[in-house]
């Protein structure tokens, strides 16, 4: 009984030793209560979490032992408001055990859903989160008394203990006299703090946001700063590893495959890890501290003018990381037209994978690429907003909770950062490496499978077919046309293909380099973003968007080339 010592009223469900064997355990609760964080802890998963209302947008499930855990999107009540919450209710009703995850900071309101869950008759336990924050603001919650008030077990123990209790099936039943709510709970000081006030101020929020983004790019891209410095180190390390690998090899073709194909291609993309780490660290800190949530509110006027949902701010910020993930966040919207509008503009927000592309083409031209890259990021967001104004469709009223400002938990920040980097590294060592091998083969063999120079290869013959489309942007090398094509699989491939096929650099002049980057900025996102978009908005709409983006990308690049050619 050690595992439930924190629950003073505990007794064992005697009849059924493993009450939840082979059963379904559903995690339900209000948005931003911490369901996914608990789910990750219970199942050792790494699902995306965020300090924002509506991060989880579809039920996720994982079986550990003989228990299937289901994480459902947040819901306020069974009568629902947005599309995401409809799927949650069905899952809750089908659970063998429902863990109602409740944010201790807003306990009183959360109980509305708790009562509805209990009323379904499904065995329910309440799990409290953010108890430490409640204590900090002078409140308290007594789990024993609260469980007697509600009539269901209440836990505030660490997730590991909760897991053990579930696995043992030793869920204690509340015992003792029923007690009043205010004996069990005190909200503490809920006044707005000075930090909150500052970030809710629209003028401060706007300047802070712009300053934070510029600081982020500065740290990542300025040649004297951390990101660029570490990237140099990474490049040396990867180069040394490549030399070591090929030093024992004899066959020139095999050496070429390893040194040009794998190390030169995929390895060069891997070297961007430190710069991506700086970007993602910033975004995670903003998110975990509640600043993103406050900024989304304070800058709502911009989004309203662009006919966007109040939640779009969060989707756009997610877009800096990964377009596909950002598209998934739009499921929380209450109307389809608001969702479609956001999905249509998200590809314009440069994702993390476009960063190596910009750097590949702009670094050779500028001693300090930081201002140019910052311009491209802002241009992407501006394009997104402008396109949104132009697209027809309904608006959505903003009705969204704003998280309080708090110091982020270091552990959570580091976990999220490592997780994101892990995803990037897996992608580069997996799909991008495979892709580099394929590109190497295609670029070293002719149609009759003879080992030839790249110029005579089948890749060259094929790429020259699409090359004419790139002439007006000053690109006359088939290898760059091929790189652009690769981007539709994954944007990391563009930088990898250039590094592989053009070891001495792309060799583009200022006008054509900027024109090509403009093309990359506007062109349709990768295949995973495409499939996310199909899932959320349907094939027809996605194809329409992609065609529009492609057209805009070519025209934009042509015009940019014209302008810069005359300067």
């Amino acid at each position, binding site marked *: 009984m050690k595992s439930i010592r924190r629950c003073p009223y505990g007794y064992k469900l005697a009849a059924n030793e493993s009450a939840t064997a082979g059963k379904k355990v559903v995690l339900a609760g209000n948005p931003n209560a911490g369901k996914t964080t608990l789910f990750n802890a219970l199942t050792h998963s790494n699902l995306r979490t965020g300090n924002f209302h509506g991060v989880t947008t579809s039920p996720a499930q994982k079986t550990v032992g003989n228990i299937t855990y289901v994480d459902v999107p947040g819901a306020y009540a069974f*009568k629902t408001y947005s599309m995401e919450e409809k799927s949650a209710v069905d899952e809750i009703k089908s659970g063998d055990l429902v863990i109602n995850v409740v944010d201790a900071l807003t306990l009183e309101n959360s109980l509305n*859903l708790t009562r509805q869950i209990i009323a379904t008759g499904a065995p329910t336990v309440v799990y409290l989160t953010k108890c430490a924050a409640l204590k900090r603001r002078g409140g308290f919650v007594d789990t024993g008394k609260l469980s007697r008030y509600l009539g269901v077990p209440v836990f505030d123990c660490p997730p590991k203990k909760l897991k053990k209790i579930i696995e043992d099936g030793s869920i204690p039943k509340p015992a003792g006299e029923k007690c009043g709510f205010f004996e069990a709970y005190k909200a503490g000081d809920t006044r*707005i703090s000075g930090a909150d006030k500052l970030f809710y101020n629209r003028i401060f929020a706007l300047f802070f946001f712009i300053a934070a983004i510029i600081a982020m790019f500065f740290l990542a891209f300025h040649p004297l700063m951390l990101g660029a410095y570490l990237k140099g180190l990474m490049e040396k390390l990867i180069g040394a590893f490549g030399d070591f690998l090929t030093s024992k090899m004899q066959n020139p073709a095999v050496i070429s495959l390893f040194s040009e194909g794998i190390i030169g291609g995929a390895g060069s993309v891997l070297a961007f890890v430190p710069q991506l780490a700086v970007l993602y660290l910033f975004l995670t800190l903003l998110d975990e501290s509640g600043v993103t949530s406050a900024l989304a509110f304070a800058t709502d*006027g911009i*989004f309203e003018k662009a006919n966007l949902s109040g939640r779009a701010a969060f989707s756009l910020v997610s877009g800096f990381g990964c377009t596909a993930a950002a598209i998934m966040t739009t499921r929380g919207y209450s109307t389809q037209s608001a969702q479609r509008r956001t999905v249509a503009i998200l590809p314009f927000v440069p994702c993390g994978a476009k960063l190596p592309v910009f750097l590949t083409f702009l670094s050779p031209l500028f001693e300090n690429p930081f201002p140019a890259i910052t311009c491209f990021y802002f241009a992407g967001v501006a394009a997104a907003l402008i396109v949104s104004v132009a697209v027809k469709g309904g608006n959505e009223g903003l009705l969204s909770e704003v998280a309080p400002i708090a110091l982020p938990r270091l552990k959570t920040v580091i976990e999220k950062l490592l997780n994101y980097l892990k995803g990037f590294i897996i992608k580069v060592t997996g799909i991008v490496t495979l892709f580099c091998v394929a590109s190497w083969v295609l670029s070293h063999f002719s149609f009759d499978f003879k080992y030839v120079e790249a110029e005579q290869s089948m890749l060259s013959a094929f790429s020259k077919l699409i090359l004419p489309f790139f002439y007006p942007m000053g690109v006359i090398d088939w290898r760059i046309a091929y790189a652009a094509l690769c981007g539709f699989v994954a944007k990391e491939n563009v930088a990898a293909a250039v590094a592989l096929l053009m070891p001495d650099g792309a060799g583009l002049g200022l006008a054509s380099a900027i024109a090509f980057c403009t093309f990359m900025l506007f062109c349709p996102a990768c295949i995973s973003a495409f499939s996310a978009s199909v899932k959320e908005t349907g094939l027809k709409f996605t194809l329409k968007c992609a065609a529009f983006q492609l057209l805009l990308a070519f025209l934009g690049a042509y015009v940019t080339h014209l302008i810069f050619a005359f300067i």
Partner: protein
Amino acid sequence: MKVFDLKAGETGVIKNIGLSGSALERLTSLGIKVGERVEVISFSLFKSSVLISCAAVRVGIRKSLAQRIEVDI
């Protein structure tokens, strides 16, 4: 008086919520209902929406919705 007409820092008691359906449901489940005291914390850029607090809850509401919530000062 509408909640949108309050100034930042002012409070009012909700007299009537002229909304229906899911928007009303959500406000109710957040504890924002007739008889509750709410405080206006701030307005967003271009005054497109208002941030109100009610007990421990802070919620941003667009102008079109906030203009349908009546309060007594």
